[in-house]
């Protein structure tokens, strides 16, 4: 009983009141502990992590890179590929999934082919797409597109299919036309699944783009079409710079985190009705 009173009386940090909110502090602690363990493991030559350069050394390699144009150009290249592949997947995947959900005929015609192609890993497409597409750039973007496309379509289809049938019945009874039902029931009803599908799809595009850049060699640097963070890592490996490999890896982690965060924010913005309670 007294414990309850005590905990109720203790002022709790209120979210949104201070810049260092509770969960931000926790996140900082979590990252700090991780870095300290890594540093110790590396310095003490612990098994497995003994050969990984410690974070302080990685930092020393990273700092000069922050002013290096080539490093930022890798960021730019990978981000651009992710973004164009992802946007293409959204632009094609959402209407495709919606068409599959709303038209029996379209579904029956496209679904078998879709289901046969879906298990083929995007990376298995790299050699073929290098042959099919005129430029290296297009083939990498195409593989990135595939990574997000299947996930988005499956989510849109599942989302549209799981809309409560009573919503359609209610709308029909109240005199809705098919177009009205599509616009005011199917579209908003599928939106939460579109958000989930794109968040997952975005994660996959980062995985895919980096691997595609490695395999394809990132294209030719000279023509200004190559590079990318995947190529940056591969190049560091070939050049024997372990520190730079780690820099590349962390860069991708940070890039992936920010794109997911951006999508989450956008997702909340377009589905205000889920934000409630």
């Amino acid at each position, binding site marked *: 009983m007294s414990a309850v009173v005590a905990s109720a009386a203790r002022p709790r940090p209120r979210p949104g009141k201070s810049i260092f909110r509770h969960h931000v502090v926790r996140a900082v602690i979590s990252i700090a502990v991780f870095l300290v363990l890594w540093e110790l493991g590396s310095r003490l030559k612990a098994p497995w992590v003994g050969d990984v350069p410690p974070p302080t050394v990685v930092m020393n390699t990273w700092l000069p890179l922050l002013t290096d144009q080539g490093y930022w150009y890798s960021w730019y290249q990978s981000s651009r590929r992710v973004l164009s592949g992802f946007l293409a997947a959204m632009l094609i995947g959402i209407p495709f999934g919606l068409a599959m959900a709303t038209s029996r005929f379209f579904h029956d015609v496209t679904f078998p082919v879709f289901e046969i192609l879906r298990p083929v890993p995007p990376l298995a497409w790299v050699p073929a797409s290098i042959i099919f597409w005129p430029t290296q750039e297009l083939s990498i973007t195409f593989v990135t597109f595939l990574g997000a496309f299947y996930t988005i379509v499956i989510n849109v289809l599942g989302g549209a299919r799981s809309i409560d049938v009573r919503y359609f019945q209610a709308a029909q009874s109240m005199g809705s*036309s098919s177009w009205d039902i599509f616009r005011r029931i199917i579209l908003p009803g599928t939106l939460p699944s579109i958000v989930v599908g794109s968040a997952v799809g975005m994660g996959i595009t980062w995985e895919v783009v980096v691997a595609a850049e490695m395999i394809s060699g990132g294209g030719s640097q000279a023509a200004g079409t190559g590079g990318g963070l995947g190529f940056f890592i591969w190049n560091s490996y070939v050049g024997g710079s372990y520190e730079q490999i780690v820099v590349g890896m962390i860069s991708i982690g940070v890039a992936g985190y920010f794109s997911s965060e951006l999508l989450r924010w956008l997702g909340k913005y377009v589905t205000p009705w889920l934000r409630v309670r």
Partner: protein
Amino acid sequence: MNQSAQTTRLAVDPGEIVVTGVSKSYGAVGRHKDVVRDCSFTIERGKLTVMIGPSGCGKSTLIRLLAGFERPTEGTVRLDGQPVTGPDRDRLVVFQETALFPWMTTYDNIMYGPRARGEVTRETLDLAEFLLNKVGLQEFRNKYPLQLSGGMQRRAELARAMINNPRVMVLDEPFRGLDAMTKELMWEYYSRLFEESGRTNFFVTTDIDEAVFLADRLLIMSNIPTQVRAVVEVDVPRPRRLTEIIESDRANEIKREALSILHAEAMRSFARGSKAATDFVEAYLKRANRA
């Protein structure tokens, strides 16, 4: 706004539904299963007809037939003499639990029908305000359904149906899932709404207290295949108060009568498919008849 709320009136045009010899079966030919068989009844003009029956007895199927979401295998459903061929605003269904569109605010939900038909006029806008006040949700007009309590959701749904001025309002266990207190408040609220409007209402439930309190006419249904087992006129004067109904001898008499019919039906439903249970029920019914 207050002024328009006072001057706005619901011009109600109550309809009458006649169900004649309706059967509905599902499944392939030869292996099909009758859910409704040769069912006939009338939903009388301007009255509140309550249909009560054991759960799983095919009431929801009947509602889909009345609403026009499905067609009967045999027989006809007519509204004021016109055969029902599909869903229409003249027969609106208020669904079990809630079927408010979660992505629309209370106001947008209520305005759905008029907007869908392109009837956004001064008159419907006034009507929306009138109904928002009537169901007590003026302050919650910009809230999403998930932000409303269970009782508010049901009231919003009633308003969403009423703005379309249906000739018959069909309610499929609308208060299911509400807690006991809210449910009783909704009974009184809903029956006042009905008494004011004089609209034809068809209310489906499994709750005998709800049925007796609300009904002008009580249709007691049999098990699958569904038929009307008995029709009871609930001749208890309106307006009704819950406290009065609990003490009313007539209401209790009707309740006992309905319960005894329902009990036999429920026992049959319970026993379906089990030889031992069927024997038990037969023995029980014989003893009951002798007594």
